[in-house]
């Protein structure tokens, strides 16, 4: 135990006094400390030796190189060089559309934002949506048609298909199989339907590793006062999560009432972290719990929760997790019916078609040799299909396999044909949102790598005369909306980014629910999608690889998450590599001890351990799919752990997880708040008064920018982190650099634990630059590279910085980031395509300079200039920093704190408002609203 404090600190600390990052302490030098491993010639050595002598001063005064200006030959009408254009489109997650607005500069997409008009995004975004931009520019996406691992052409493929078509016309398409992911695109579904008409004996199969329910219940969290989640991570997972987060926070505001959230789960999720009562239990216990909740008898806890539900009949909601067994799901449904919640807080749409067959049939047919042509449209079954299907051994059995995909992934490599797919931002298409409304997907850039769209491939199969995706999609909608005003309809659809025509709604099919696991002692395996890689779709995306996993804060790895008690019983420690054996299959995984994990439950995330992902994703983490079985898609009991004696370094962005009684996060209950509103935030040492200084106060008339972050609504999803990275050209530095404490994120999300490691309270706190009015960083900089602006911004001027790093030492919040190396030249940032992606309004920082959050000064300037030109004032909310714009919970609010009616000033006037470390008299412009919990008083007593 630590001699410093009675309370446990980081988990490593429980085992051994010392520092959390023990994997670093074991080494003499941090990994990669020496750069000598670089190949380097004698010539280079001499060059550098000379440089070392010559460099002094001379580099300072180099003359600018001549630059060229390349104007258009014919300038497009709408383009004004230097001004961005925005296009409404959609990106799909598990097949479901989420509306986006794409910012483009001279034809280059540079930023993705949620489309406020779209029901599934409501203007917000998550890490996946933000990171699609990087995938678009990924130079490792497949770039050519490959035939038997030889570069080939589209026309040759057409030739082969034409040949096959003759046969199919004869036999009605026997032996032709189509394998897609979940398709919601009306146009695609129409094309497939027509294909199946043309070839009656052809079959269409659908497989999506996340098997998101197409006919998922639709929750209205804003109407629910008591919510019980049975293993559901509705706030951060799934295609409706953004709407859920939005609605949930509406009812989370401390007004006359505040909603209450019970979460019952086996592995900590962001939803669990928001819970007022979080119950930790194994999946099989969870089933019993669901039953007792229904009967209202049994455990006291269940009874109390049931009572609370019934008190709020019609205003309550029970949500079952998609990874839970049918038992739990049905229980939840029945509960909602008995509580008269159906129609009030939840709708169960009628389950639609089931025309698509599942993967199981495809596999059996393939083994029966009934398939001669398999067309795989998107997806990567060879990697993510259940292990017992042995998909890899099955592909060679099929005469002709064709794969269309963004990457030449595990499946693409194994197929005879691989066709590069056009990214959703590169081609015309359409898709439906989770609640049925359709969106036209319009391209914002020409395909970078000559990709083909799914429509073109299907058209080829249909032997239709070649037409572009644009024509295909437009033709479909013309057919569906055959009215004289079609042109208007079309333009409106493109402009608004959403079509209210629900008739295009996605037909539905249900995923295979988990069979009730046989009750058994021993360890329980939980397989879950990754918050970074999703199902592996993003594994070549460096932003998401370096995006700290919200619970573990781990980057560039996945691990076997295990509960502290179980770990000590099995004598396991962080980073220890073990053999996970599950029903005859096994995989090697490093251990990570996670507080709040259920005892005897081991959680592993899919999406890692890729082999044909690209230089970024290959070999990162282990492949959890090897333990994924068709009858236990989300795991089950009967897991065994074998020691290997090996160690694997796991890297996190936060090593220390306890608040040391420094109340960075201030928490109270809703009841306390109603009694004494200001008691919670003012709990700690108060900051000195403004006049308690020898120096004249800076006059703060005119505009004064400030930010308020509401910890009560922040769900800790981290969308802000990636949004900021995209907006501000923040480099990726790689595992080794992060391991040495050099991650570059301008806004980080701190995660603290409080209480019993078995089930602690979990807090999230976004930390950007505080823009202190008395900024400690400013007075220590010898060259005045960081100074205050007239509007109270703490300015950081890269081109003046000489890199003494004194400012970072003196920053109590440690929000400053330093370019220790030339990160812009590293493996992740070098590719030329990355340069196209840069935000032209933000300087790309060179080696040796400090950087930090600027409140998105480029956005402030843009709005300011427009307002100045129009001689008008800046409207409240007109300026949105990237983080605030992305936040699905609206927890980050920015504005003028000298304007008494601005949203931000109203928040800062709240009794819950407090400044982080304000007792240091830094007078932070970024302030926090204390977190409120709304526990069930009776349950508290137990």
């Amino acid at each position, binding site marked *: 135990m630590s001699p410093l404090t009675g309370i446990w600190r980081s988990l490593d600390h429980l085992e051994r006094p010392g520092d959390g990052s023990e994997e670093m302490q074991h080494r003499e030098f941090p990994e990669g400390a020496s750069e000598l491993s670089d190949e380097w010639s004698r010539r280079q050595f001499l060059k550098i030796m000379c440089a070392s002598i010559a460099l002094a001063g001379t580099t300072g*005064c180099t*003359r*600018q190189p*001549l*630059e*060229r*200006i*390349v*104007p*258009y*030959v*014919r*300038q497009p009408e709408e383009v*004004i*060089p*230097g*001004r961005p254009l925005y296009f409404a489109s959609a990106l799909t997650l598990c097949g479901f559309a989420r509306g986006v607005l794409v910012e483009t500069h001279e034809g280059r997409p540079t930023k993705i934002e949620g489309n406020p008009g779209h029901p599934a995004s409501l203007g917000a975004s998550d890490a996946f949506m933000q990171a699609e931009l990087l995938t678009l520019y990924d130079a490792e996406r497949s770039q050519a048609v490959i035939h038997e691992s030889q570069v080939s052409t589209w026309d040759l493929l057409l030739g082969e298909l034409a040949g096959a078509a003759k046969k199919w016309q004869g036999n009605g398409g026997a032996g032709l199989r189509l394998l897609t992911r979940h398709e919601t695109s009306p146009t695609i579904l129409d094309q497939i339907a027509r294909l199946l008409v043309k070839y009656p004996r052809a079959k269409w199969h659908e497989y999506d590793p996340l098997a998101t329910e197409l006919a998922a219940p639709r929750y209205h969290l804003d109407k629910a006062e008591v919510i019980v989640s049975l293993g559901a991570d509705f706030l951060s997972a799934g295609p409706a999560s953004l709407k859920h987060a939005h609605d949930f926070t509406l009812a989370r505001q401390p007004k006359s009432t505040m909603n209450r959230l019970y979460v019952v789960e086996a592995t900590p999720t962001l939803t669990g972290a928001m819970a007022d009562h979080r119950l930790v239990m194994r999946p099989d216990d969870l089933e019993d719990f669901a039953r007792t909740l229904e009967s209202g008898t049994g455990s006291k806890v269940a009874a109390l929760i049931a009572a609370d539900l019934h008190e709020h009949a019609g205003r309550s909601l029970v949500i079952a997790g998609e990874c839970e067994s049918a038992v739990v799901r049905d229980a939840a449904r029945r509960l909602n019916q008995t509580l008269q919640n159906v129609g009030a807080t939840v709708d169960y749409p009628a389950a639609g078609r089931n025309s698509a067959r599942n993967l199981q049939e495809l596999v059996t047919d393939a083994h029966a040799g009934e398939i001669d042509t398999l067309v795989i449209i998107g997806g990567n079954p060879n990697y993510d299909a259940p292990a017992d299907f042995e998909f890899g051994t099955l592909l060679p059995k099929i005469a002709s396999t064709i794969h269309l995909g963004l990457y030449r992934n595990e499946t693409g490599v194994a197929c005879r044909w691989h066709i590069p797919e056009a990214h959703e931002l590169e081609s015309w298409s359409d898709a439906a949102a989770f609640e049925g409304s359709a969106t036209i997907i319009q391209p914002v850039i020409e395909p970078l790598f000559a990709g083909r769209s799914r429509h073109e491939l299907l058209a080829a199969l249909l032997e239709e005369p070649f037409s572009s995706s644009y024509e295909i999609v437009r033709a479909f909608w013309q057919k569906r909306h055959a009215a004289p005003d079609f042109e208007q309809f079309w333009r409106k659809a493109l402009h608004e980014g959403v079509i209210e025509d629900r008739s295009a709604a996605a037909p539905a099919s249900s995923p295979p629910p988990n069979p009730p696991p046989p009750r058994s002692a021993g360890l329980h395996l939980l397989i879950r999608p990754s918050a970074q890689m999703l199902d592996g779709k993003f594994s070549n995306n460096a932003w998401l690889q370096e995006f700290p996993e919200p619970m573990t804060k781990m980057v560039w790895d996945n691990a076997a998450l295990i509960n502290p008690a179980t770990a000590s019983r099995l004598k396991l420690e962080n980073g220890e590599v073990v053999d996970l054996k599950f029903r005859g299959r096994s995989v090697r995984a490093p251990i990570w001890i996670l507080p709040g994990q259920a005892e005897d439950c081991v959680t592993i995330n899919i999406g890692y351990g890729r082999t044909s992902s690209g230089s970024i994703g290959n070999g990162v983490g282990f492949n959890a799919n090897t333990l994924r079985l068709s009858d236990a898609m989300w795991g089950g009991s009967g897991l065994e752990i074998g020691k290997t004696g090996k160690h694997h370094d796991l890297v996190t962005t936060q090593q220390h997880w306890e608040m040391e009684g420094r109340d960075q996060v201030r928490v109270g209950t809703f009841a306390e708040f109603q009694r004494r509103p200001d008691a919670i935030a003012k709990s700690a040492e108060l900051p000195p008064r403004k006049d308690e200084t020898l120096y004249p106060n800076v006059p703060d008339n*005119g505009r004064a920018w400030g930010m308020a972050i509401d910890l009560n609504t922040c769900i800790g999803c981290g969308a802000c982190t990636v949004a900021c990275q995209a907006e501000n050209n923040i480099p990726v530095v790689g595992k080794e650099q992060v391991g040495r404490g050099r991650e570059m994120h301008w806004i980080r999300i701190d995660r603290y634990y409080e209480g019993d490691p078995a089930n602690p309270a979990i807090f999230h706190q976004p930390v950007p630059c505080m823009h202190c009015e008395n900024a400690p960083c400013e007075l220590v900089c010898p060259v005045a590279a960081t*100074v205050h*602006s*007239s*509007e109270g*911004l703490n*300015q950081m*001027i*890269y*081109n*003046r910085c000489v890199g003494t790093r004194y400012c970072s030492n003196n920053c109590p919040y440690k929000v400053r980031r330093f370019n220790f190396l030339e990160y812009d030249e590293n493996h992740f940032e070098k590719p030329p395509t990355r340069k196209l992606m840069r935000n032209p*309004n*933000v*300087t*790309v920082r060179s080696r040796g300079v400090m950087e930090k959050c*600027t409140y998105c*000064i*480029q956005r*402030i*300037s843009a709005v300011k*200039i427009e307002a*100045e*030109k129009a*001689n008008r004032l800046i409207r409240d909310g007109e300026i949105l920093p990237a983080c605030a714009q992305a936040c699905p919970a609206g927890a980050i609010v920015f504005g003028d704190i000298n304007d008494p009616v601005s949203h931000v000033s109203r928040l800062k006037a709240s009794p819950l408002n407090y400044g982080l470390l304000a007792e240091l008299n830094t007078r932070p412009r970024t302030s926090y609203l204390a977190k409120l919990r709304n526990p069930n008083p009776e349950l508290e007593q137990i």
Partner: protein
Amino acid sequence: MPQLFERRANAIARATLIAVPLVVLGGWAVLLAFARSDFWTGVDSPVEQPVPFSHQHHVGGLGIDCRYCHTSAETSSFAGIPPTETCMTCHSQIWKDAPLLQPVRDSWQTGRSIKWTRVYDLPDYTYFDHSIHINKGVACASCHGQVNEMPLTWKTNQLYMRWCLDCHRHPEKFLRPINQTVKMNYQAAPNQRPLGRQLIIANHVHTDGLADCYTCHR
């Protein structure tokens, strides 16, 4: 013991004592002067261009307005370099086979852009916005000089930061009435400073924070 040094050694020694500091300080002064020299900054030296375009002829001679070619000067950060199309509006009619204009015609036929060389090239970490300056009464000529008298184009200011700051700290020294910003023949009023002070109000120039770092650096 024989004499080691001749008499003049003393003189030399004394001379050296004086010379050394002089050389050091002098060298430093020269360096500073050099950094400000036109040779180093390229002020007043015409820049080689694919087409020897003459502002003197087009602006001075024909009286074409700046904004005819630099269309986005009032609306965007970037003033805009005319697309080949703009040149061809006239030069498909007049001088349509002048050899000088061959590159223009080529660009028009091939669809390949003309690659002009920048005359005013700010470092990439400096963000200048044309529109706000034009809209607040900073004239084209204030930075670009009398282009109407330039047969070839050259820059007339060093673009050093102190030069920018001079105006950002004392706009009254340079402001013009807004309707005069694109005029090339504008005569600076003798009472520029008092006038400038009035213009600051008339043009709604908010002087506080004009010299903030973030005004230009992001």
